[in-house]
C-alpha cells in the first residue's frame, strides 16, 4: 500500500474526533426519536440527528447536500412535522405499552439481526481503496453536481419535478374537504337549536367562573360542575381538559367563610341565609318608604 493510497484511506485526526463525538450524539438522537414518549420530543431528537448528519455530509465533501440537508430537512420537513403535530395533538394517547403480542420482541430480534448482518456485510466488503473527492470537487462541489444533474441525470431531474407537483396536488386533494351543503346562517342555527331542544341558549364560553381564563378549562355550571361543552373538541378527544371545579367550589366556600367571619356570625344553613337577606331587603324598603312619607 503506497503513501498516496494510505492518505486516501485514512482521514485527518480532526475529522476522526468530530466523527466520534458527533456519532454518539447522532445515535443518541436516533434512539431518542424512537423512545421518547411525546412526539414533539421525538421530533426534536430527529432534528438534532439531522443536523449532525448535515455536518457529516459536509465532512464528506458533500457541501451542497449538507446545506440542503439543513434547509430542507431540519428547516422545511421538520417544520411540517411540527405543524401536523400541532394539528393532530402533541400527546395523542401514545403510550409506549405494546398491544400486539410479541411485536416488540420480534422487532428487536429482527432489528438486531439486521444490524449485525448489515455491519458484518460492510466489514466483509473489501473496501480497501478510498479515492477521496478532491479531484471531483476541484471545480467546486455545486458546479460538479450541477453538471451531473443537468447533463447525465436531466431526465430523472425533470421527472422529479413532475413528482413534486403531483405530491403537492395530492397533499391538497387529501386534506381538502368538499363543501357539500351551504353554511347555516345564524338564524338557521338558532332555529335548529330550538328544534333540538338540548341546548337552547348559546353555548357557555370557556373560562366562565374559572380561575383560569384558558381554553382547556371548562366553564362551570351554576351548581359548580364543569361543562365539557365549553372546551374545544380536539382537546376533549385528547383528554386535555383541566377540571378546576373542586378548586372553584373551595374558593367560593372560602369567600363565604370570610364574609361570615367579618359579620361575626357563624355560618348558617343555606335556607336561613336565603330568608334573612330577603327580610332585610323588605325592611329596608319599608324604611325608605317610611322616610319618603316623613319628608
Amino acid at each position: 500500500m503506497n503513501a498516496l493510497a494510505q492518505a486516501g484511506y485514512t482521514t485527518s485526526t480532526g475529522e476522526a474526533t468530530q466523527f466520534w463525538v458527533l456519532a454518539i450524539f447522532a445515535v443518541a438522537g436516533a434512539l431518542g426519536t424512537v423512545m421518547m414518549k411525546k412526539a414533539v420530543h421525538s421530533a426534536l431528537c430527529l432534528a438534532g440527528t439531522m443536523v449532525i448528519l448535515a455536518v457529516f455530509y459536509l465532512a464528506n465533501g458533500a457541501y451542497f447536500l449538507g446545506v440542503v440537508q439543513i434547509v430542507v430537512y431540519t428547516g422545511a420537513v421538520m417544520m411540517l412535522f411540527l405543524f401536523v403535530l400541532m394539528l393532530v395533538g402533541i400527546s395523542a394517547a401514545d403510550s409506549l405499552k405494546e398491544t400486539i403480542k410479541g411485536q416488540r420482541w420480534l422487532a428487536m430480534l429482527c432489528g438486531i439481526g439486521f444490524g449485525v448482518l448489515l455491519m458484518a456485510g460492510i466489514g466483509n466488503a473489501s473496501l480497501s481503496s478510498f479515492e477521496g473527492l478532491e479531484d471531483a470537487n476541484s471545480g467546486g462541489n455545486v458546479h460538479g453536481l450541477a453538471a451531473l444533474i443537468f447533463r447525465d441525470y436531466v431526465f430523472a431531474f425533470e421527472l422529479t419535478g413532475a413528482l413534486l407537483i403531483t405530491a403537492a396536488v395530492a397533499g391538497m386533494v387529501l386534506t381538502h374537504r368538499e363543501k357539500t351543503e351551504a353554511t347555516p346562517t345564524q338564524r338557521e342555527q338558532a332555529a335548529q337549536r330550538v328544534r333540538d331542544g338540548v341546548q337552547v341558549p348559546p353555548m357557555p364560553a370557556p373560562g366562565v367562573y374559572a380561575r383560569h381564563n384558558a381554553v382547556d378549562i371548562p366553564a362551570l355550571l351554576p351548581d359548580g360542575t364543569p361543562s365539557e361543552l365549553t372546551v374545544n373538541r380536539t382537546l376533549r378527544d385528547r383528554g386535555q381538559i383541566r377540571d378546576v371545579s373542586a378548586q372553584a367550589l373551595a374558593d367560593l366556600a372560602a369567600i363565604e367563610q370570610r364574609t361570615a367571619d367579618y359579620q361575626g356570625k357563624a355560618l348558617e344553613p343555606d335556607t336561613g341565609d336565603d330568608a334573612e337577606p330577603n327580610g332585610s331587603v323588605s325592611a329596608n324598603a319599608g324604611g325608605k318608604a317610611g322616610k319618603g312619607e316623613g319628608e
Partner: protein
Amino acid sequence: MNPVNYLYLAALLFTIGAAGVLIRRNAIVVFMCIELMLNACNLALITFSRMHGNLDGQIVAFFTMVVAAAEVVVGLAIIVSFYRSRHSASVDDAALMKL
C-alpha cells in the same frame, strides 16, 4: 480513522429507524423513523461518493431528498385526513384489513 465508520454509523441509524417503525404506534413518529432511515441511506450514499471519488452518490442522495420531501407531503396529508375521520393517529387503529 477509516471512513468506513460512516457506513457503520449509517447501518446503525437505519436499524434504529427500522426498529422504530416496528415499535411505535403514533403515525407521525413512525413517519419520523422512516425519515431517519432515509437519512441513514443518504449518509451511506455520500460516503460511497467519497470512496469512489465521483459525485454520482451525491446525486442519488439528492434525488432521495427530493423524493423524501414529496413523500412527507403525501404521508402527512394522509395522517391528517385519517385523524379527521378517526380522531386518532395510531397506526393500529387502521386495522380494517384483519380477518
